């Protein structure tokens, strides 16, 4: 709870920075605050506390995810310095980012649908603004508009679903909903619209995690939004969405698994394939990463589909592995944005200008592609393990095939980086980007070599 409060207050404080003239120390302040929040989260481990009439429940699951979100945000801060310092609206940006994080933390910890909704909206509304925040850039505007329109449209379905669930159970409390559903299921008098409600909530969430066929917004928004915001969206927001998704479905609708899991399995399969196949053709690295993030959503959905006792860990492990590696990739992408050319081909000369970067970059790419000994592999392994355990061999097979496609385009990044640039000096990185790539790849490797640290949290 302290974590949540600190982050929220940090957001409010950031908002005031401009007015109260402490802009200069804002970033250090945020870092310190986030570290404190992280500290509180870690300190609360195993405490399993519920607050405010069971509005939030900080159990290990939410603490782990909150910590992950904070850590990823801290990583993100490494490359975001320039974004903040170059913008005249630094305070507002920082505040919005922190509000997004607030929403995200709520989404990991809610135990009431109203909290879930509020968290989701705090996150979404701030993000709509952030996506459109590059005002002079038409593509940013377009991204903001698209995200906003489709996001609120999807929210409508989500709310309709929530309403239907409420209609049966007369409560928003997750535990009560679960028990009510369980009772009516055994009694056999579940109204049909409960199922509809589940499906509609699922649709709303599938939109948020950009699963096919609700993924269309993602590539456009990811591409249009400022790169730094895309990085945040692809990692922190995605992680939060999955945390909420799993939390909701594992606590509330666990008894209905047999009902929704098949549809979701098909969606997971389509998502993986669509994301990976579409990524193949992309010339722009940013857009490619957008599609790849869609594909990754497909893998994470597999864990929710499997819905067994390792699924929580699987989602967590995957989110961690994916977020860290993606963050590294986004550092590279940020450098491309700085250079004004986001096409993969512009990476030529990278390895020549930045000695040794190729090693770390390869590590990141291997992690994204899910190849040992990187974290991505263990995450995938865990997902597969869960899926097979629940009897989804076919889905695993699809996952395997689509990750092969993944290799196909991820490795292009390495190929191109290795080539010499015939004209001009080629691509270079700045210090922050460099260090983030190194840090991200090292974390990926560490998680890969010692997967036990994360795999055995038993969330």
């Amino acid at each position: 709870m302290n974590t949540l409060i600190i982050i929220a207050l940090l957001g409010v404080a950031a908002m005031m920075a401009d007015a109260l003239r402490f802009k200069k120390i804002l970033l250090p302040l945020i870092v310190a605050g986030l570290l404190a929040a992280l500290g509180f989260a870690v300190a609360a481990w195993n405490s399993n506390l519920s607050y405010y009439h069971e509005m939030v429940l900080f159990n290990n699951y939410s603490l782990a995810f909150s910590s992950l979100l904070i850590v990823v945000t801290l990583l993100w801060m490494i490359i975001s310095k320039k974004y903040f310092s170059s913008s005249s609206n630094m305070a507002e940006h920082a505040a919005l980012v922190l509000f997004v994080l607030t929403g995200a933390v709520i989404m990991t910890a809610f135990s009431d649908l109203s909290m879930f909704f509020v968290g989701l909206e705090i996150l979404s509304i701030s993000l709509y603004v952030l996506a459109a925040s590059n005002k002079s850039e038409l593509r940013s505007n377009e991204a903001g508009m698209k995200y906003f329109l489709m996001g609120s449209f999807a929210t409508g379905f989500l709310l309709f679903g929530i309403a239907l669930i409420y209609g049966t159970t007369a409560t928003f409390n997750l535990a009560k909903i679960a028990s009510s559903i369980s009772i009516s299921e055994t009694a056999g008098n579940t109204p049909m619209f409960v199922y509809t409600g589940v499906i509609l909530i699922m649709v709303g969430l599938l939109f948020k995690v950009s699963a096919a066929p609700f993924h269309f917004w993602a590539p456009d928004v990811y591409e249009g939004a400022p790169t730094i915001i895309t990085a945040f969206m692809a990692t922190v927001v995605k992680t939060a969405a999955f945390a909420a998704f799993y939390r909701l479905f594992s606590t509330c609708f666990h008894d209905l698994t047999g009902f929704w899991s098949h549809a979701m399995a098909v969606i997971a399969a389509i998502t993986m394939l669509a994301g990976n196949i579409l990524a193949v053709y992309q010339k722009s690295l940013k857009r490619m990463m957008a599609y790849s993030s869609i594909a990754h959503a497909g893998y994470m959905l597999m864990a929710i589909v499997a819905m067994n006792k390792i699924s929580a860990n699987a989602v967590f492990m995957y989110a961690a592995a994916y977020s860290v590696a993606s963050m590294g990739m986004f550092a590279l992408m940020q450098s491309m944005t700085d250079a004004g050319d986001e096409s993969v081909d512009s990476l030529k000369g990278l390895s020549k200008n930045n000695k040794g970067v190729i090693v770390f970059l390869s590590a990141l790419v291997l992690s994204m592609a899910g190849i040992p000994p990187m974290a991505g592999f263990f995450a995938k392994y865990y997902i597969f393990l869960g899926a097979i355990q629940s009897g989804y061999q076919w889905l695993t097979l699809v996952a395997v095939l689509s990750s092969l496609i993944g290799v196909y385009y991820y490795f292009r990044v390495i190929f191109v980086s290795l080539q010499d640039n015939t004209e001009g000096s080629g691509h270079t990185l700045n210090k922050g980007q460099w260090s983030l790539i190194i840090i991200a790849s090292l974390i990926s490797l560490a998680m890969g070599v010692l997967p036990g640290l994360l795999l055995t949290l038993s969330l």
Partner: protein
Amino acid sequence: MNPSLPFFVLATLSVFSALMVVLSRKPVHSVLYLIFCFFTIGGHYLLLNAQFLFAVHIIVYAGAIMVLFLFTLMFINMNKELEPHKTNLLKVAATVAAGCLLLVMVGVTKGAEKLAAHSTRSDVGTVANLGKALYGQYLLPFELISILLLAAMVGAVLLGKKSVE
């Protein structure tokens, strides 16, 4: 008088005005139909004994949101029929899709009769009751709504402010 008559009258009006929102060619007409629609929905709130909600609804929607809409509409000077319409094919497709959705939604939202008999409480929608709920059980989300509004405010300012280049 048939006690269920108000429902049917209001429902018909709601559906009609909603349809008109969609079908009106002029944006301003749409806005006005929407306001009307909101009033009919407000009527439903009254029928449902949700007096507080009725008040809030009228204030927020008809009073604030719709005014904002109208204001924007005026601001961008769209009172005339400048909206380019979709091709007929797309319109048909949209209607068919929406129609299907309608059928499906109505089809899949059945089963309310399976619920236990409805409560006879009539004081649910009172200000007192809701106030207790808001400041009691729902204190935390209520407070967090303020963060939400803050975020929206900061966002609107950020987007609306003239950038100092």
